[in-house]
Structures are given as structure tokens and as C-alpha cells.
């Protein structure tokens, strides 16, 4: 490392520092996925995917979606664009695992596919993303666990080697996986969810059409919408905030404010559902800068140990985390004041008051969406807390929370949410 880099390392912030305002010494923002949004796009998926180099497409989806007829319309769209459907994997479960990923990658080879099209929610899209890694580089999913570990040219220092073209048609408005570089997959033997993330895993194309969420059950619309809300709020207040991710988070929050409840109350409202797809898509973008927080740390552990659906866990944990973080100092509270402004809430007063106003707003929203408001309602018990704390402490999201969080504080947060 040369002298300049030494200086840069030091400027990039000392260990555990939380710079919540001013000019940041370093950040990275990545948004390489081509996004197409609007009405009646599914029939044109082949036309669009061809521009990304696809010719023989492996479609990855789940049984429920297949039965709705959506996948048939996707197949027609693929073929209308002059592409071939090489094969279909329609057995992705709600909580996908390494075995499903391996079978998906094998299907790609068996059918002679050269590209992958994911039609589904987070589990389907993450399965397709990791299957793409195995399809191109071989190995097994856990062997690729970690960040920025995919093969690169020039002895590992150069350009990351490309994966096969991947397109995503999200059928929930929450995870934003269609434009993120990370995938989460379960290792059922080890009872853990593990993450793989690297730049080539960004899908090449994301197609956002409200037709794809037309059959989405309202409860799922509510919980996935709260996942998007959590991405946007945590992304905005994370220690890794930056002006680029701020712009995405704020636009997402305004769309969520205007459309989440509307889409829940009026499931046939295409405009509201379309805007929710866009909100979720925008809300995930701060994670390209690692901007996220401990509501996610807590919820990942709830999912791994107690099988709590991710959006539901976020909906329950988020308000407690907001109150905890906002009380961590004026600089952190200032970020929450901006969020409160979007929702028309109190922006003045003490740090605690700002956090409480937003926390209460989120609690009321969660209740109005008919979602559980307590972890005890979704199978978490006092006896689980030690395991959950252990999981949350080891979660990457904990490192980028605006406020340092100890084991004792995690335990207290879980008890508050219980």
C-alpha cells in the first residue's frame, strides 16, 4: 500500500466511527441493473432480455405462481421476443436452500440454457442469483459465502468475471432483490441463512409491471411492503448513508407513504401496486453502499432460528430500533427528523421525542396493515433470546447501524419487541 492509500484508510473513518453528516471520506454506490417499469411489459420480456444477450432461457419460479397463469404469460413473452425457453424450474420453496440452488444450476446445464429469468419473490430471485454463480463457476453455495469473493481477472485484482445474463420479474414488492448484489440462502443442516454478494450478481434486467403482483395476497403485500419500508428507513439512517443512497431512500419513502396502505386496502389498484414495486426497487439501493441497520440483524436471526417471515420480523422490530437509534445522539436524530418530515410527523423536540414519534407511527401502520406487532405472536419466546442475540451480533448489518449495539442492548430490544 502506498502512502496515499494509508492516508485514505485513515480518512475513511476510524474503527466504529459514525459520521452522520458532512462530506464522507469514502463511499461506493452501484446501480447497474437496467430497470423497466410500466404496464403491459410481460409480453415484451423476450424483446428486452435479448438485449442482454439471452438466447436460451432457464425460467426459475415457484408452483403457486405457475398455477396463477403468470408464468405462461412470461413464457409467451420470452418466445415472442425470439428466445427459446430452455427449461423451467418451478419448485423453489418460500424459504429456499442450498439444495434447491444446486438443482437449479444443474437444470441450467441439463437444458443447455445460456441465461436465467427469475419470476417470483425474494426466495426465487435469490435462488436464481446463487444458481447463476454455481452455473458459471461451479462449486457449492456455501463455498461462495461472503462478499466480493467471486473470481476476478488479473490474479483476483481485476474485473470480476461475468455471470450468465439474469433477468428478474419480482412478484412481491419488498425485497428489491431484482436490483441488489446480495442473495440469502438457507443451509438447512446448519440452521443458518448465509449471504453471497458480489458485483456480477446484480441482475442485468428488472421488469416492474403491476400485473406481476395482481394475485399477491394482501397479507404478503403488507409484510413485504414493510420490508421495503425498513430498507428505506435503515438505509437513510445507517452509518453508511451517502447522498446517492439518500436520494433513493427518500424517493422510496414518499412512494411508500402514498401507496403501501392504498395497495393493501385496494389490491386491484394497479397504480398503487406498480408504485409499490418501484418503491421496493428504490428502497434496496442504499444497500449497495452497505447502508442498512440492526432491525435487519434482529430479523435475520428471527428468520434463521424461529422461522419468522422476514417482512413480518422487520415490521415488528423496526419501531423499537428507531427509538433506540434516535436516542443515540443529535446527529443520528437529525437523520430521523428528515424521515419524520416525509411522514408529516414531529421534526422538533429531543432526539428521544423524534424517535418515539416515528416509532409510534410505524407501530400504528403495522397494526393497520393487519400484521403482528409482537414477536411473541410469531413464535419467538423468552428462551430464544440468547440465540437471537448471538445471531444479531454476528450479522453484517450490525456493523453499519448508526449506534453501537451491545449484546445486552440487543437482548433488551428483543424483550421490548416480544
Amino acid at each position, binding site marked *: *500500500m502506498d502512502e496515499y*492509500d*494509508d492516508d485514505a*484508510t*485513515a480518512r*475513511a*473513518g*476510524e*474503527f*466504529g*466511527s459514525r459520521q452522520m453528516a458532512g462530506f464522507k471520506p*469514502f*463511499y*461506493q454506490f452501484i446501480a447497474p441493473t437496467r430497470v423497466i417499469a410500466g404496464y403491459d411489459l410481460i409480453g415484451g420480456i423476450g424483446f428486452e432480455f435479448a438485449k442482454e444477450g439471452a438466447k436460451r432461457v432457464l425460467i426459475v419460479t415457484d408452483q403457486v405462481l405457475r398455477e396463477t397463469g403468470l408464468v405462461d404469460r412470461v413464457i409467451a413473452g420470452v418466445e415472442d421476443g425470439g428466445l427459446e425457453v430452455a427449461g423451467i424450474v418451478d419448485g423453489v420453496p418460500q424459504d429456499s436452500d442450498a439444495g434447491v440452488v444446486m438443482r437449479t444450476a444443474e437444470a441450467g446445464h441439463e437444458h443447455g440454457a445460456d441465461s436465467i429469468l427469475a419470476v417470483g419473490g425474494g426466495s426465487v430471485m435469490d435462488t436464481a442469483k446463487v444458481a447463476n454463480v454455481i452455473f458459471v463457476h461451479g462449486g457449492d453455495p*456455501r463455498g461462495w*459465502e*461472503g*462478499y*466480493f*469473493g467471486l473470481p476476478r481477472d488479473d490474479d483476483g485484482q481485476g474485473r470480476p468475471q461475468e455471470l450468465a445474463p439474469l433477468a428478474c420479474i419480482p412478484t412481491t414488492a419488498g425485497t428489491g432483490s431484482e436490483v441488489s448484489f446480495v442473495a440469502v440462502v438457507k443451509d438447512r443442516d446448519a440452521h*443458518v441463512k*448465509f*449471504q453471497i454478494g458480489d458485483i456480477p450478481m446484480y441482475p442485468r434486467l428488472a421488469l416492474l409491471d403491476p400485473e406481476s403482483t395482481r394475485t399477491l395476497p394482501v397479507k404478503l403485500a403488507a409484510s413485504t411492503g414493510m420490508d421495503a419500508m425498513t430498507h428505506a428507513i435503515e438505509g437513510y439512517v445507517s*452509518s*453508511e448513508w451517502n447522498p446517492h443512497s439518500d436520494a433513493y431512500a427518500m424517493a422510496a419513502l414518499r412512494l411508500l407513504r402514498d401507496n403501501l396502505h392504498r395497495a393493501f386496502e385496494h389490491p386491484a389498484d394497479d397504480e398503487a401496486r406498480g408504485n409499490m414495486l418501484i418503491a421496493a426497487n428504490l428502497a434496496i439501493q442504499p444497500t449497495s*453502499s*452497505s447502508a442498512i441497520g440492526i432491525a435487519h440483524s434482529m430479523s435475520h436471526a428471527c428468520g434463521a432460528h424461529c422461522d419468522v417471515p422476514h417482512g413480518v420480523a422487520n415490521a415488528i422490530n423496526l419501531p423499537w430500533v428507531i427509538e433506540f437509534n434516535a436516542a443515540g445522539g443529535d446527529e443520528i436524530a437529525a437523520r430521523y427528523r428528515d424521515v419524520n418530515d416525509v411522514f408529516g410527523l414531529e421534526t422538533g423536540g429531543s432526539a428521544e421525542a423524534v424517535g418515539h414519534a416515528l416509532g409510534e407511527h410505524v407501530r400504528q401502520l403495522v397494526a393497520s396493515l393487519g400484521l403482528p406487532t409482537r414477536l411473541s405472536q410469531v413464535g419467538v419466546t423468552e428462551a430464544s433470546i440468547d440465540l437471537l442475540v*448471538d445471531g444479531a*451480533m*454476528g*450479522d*453484517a448489518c*450490525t*456493523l*453499519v447501524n448508526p449506534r*453501537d449495539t*451491545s449484546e445486552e442492548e440487543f437482548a433488551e430490544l428483543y424483550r421490548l419487541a416480544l
Partner: protein
Amino acid sequence: MAYFKDEQELYQYIGRLFQDLAADEELAPKFKKANTIVQYRYRNPDAQITTKLIEGEEGQVDLGPTELVHEVLMTMEADTAHNFWLGKVNITVALARGQMKAKGPVAKILKLVPLVKPVFPRYKKLLSDAGREDLIIP
């Protein structure tokens, strides 16, 4: 110019710190909660430290070649490691910039990160006691 002139010097300071931590009655049991074997590979100078952190087992720190099979691999410049132990490196930024690369179940060692904060003064003292104030960046 790199802080350490050769691998022996790196082992003398960073290696010694790992050995001290492994023998620390208060900290070692907490680090062993990671239940993993981590290998740190350094460049400029090239060096390798492998640590066994497994609950209920004796801690082990191997400087150089090892028979331990690592589960997590961390690679970085030796200077980055030195700066880290001085408390000067934001891990998130270091990972994003490629200054640190992590492979394997990284979550197992991320839970150790909050524990290392109190270790920074110990590293400074180790350098100071060895008469190497020149390595302590203000």
C-alpha cells in the same frame, strides 16, 4: 514504505497480539464463541496467521505454515492489518474498497468485531513497550 520490514517483524507484533489474546482469561472465552478457524493472509510482507477459536478447546495461534484447516479466510495488506489493530480502519469501508477480502462464513467473525475495540490500546502498548513508537500513527 511498508510498516513491517519482513514477516518476522509482523509476527513479532501482530502475531504476538493474537497469542496474547488467545491466552487472555477474560477475552479468550468470548473470542472462542466464534467457533471457527480463521486464517489471515497478509501481503507486503507476505505472512500468514491462523487462529483456532473453538469453544471448549484450547486456543491455537499458528504463525506461518499450519496444519489447521481454515473456515474463514481474510486477506489484506500487512499495513491494513496494522492500521486495523491501531483502531484506524472502518471494516465496512475496507471490505467495500477491497482493502480487506473475506471468504467463508464471515458472520462468525463479525460478531467478534465489537470485542476487539478494547484490544487497540493493548496493541499500542505492545508497540510502545518494544520501543516502536514509530509504528504508532497519531
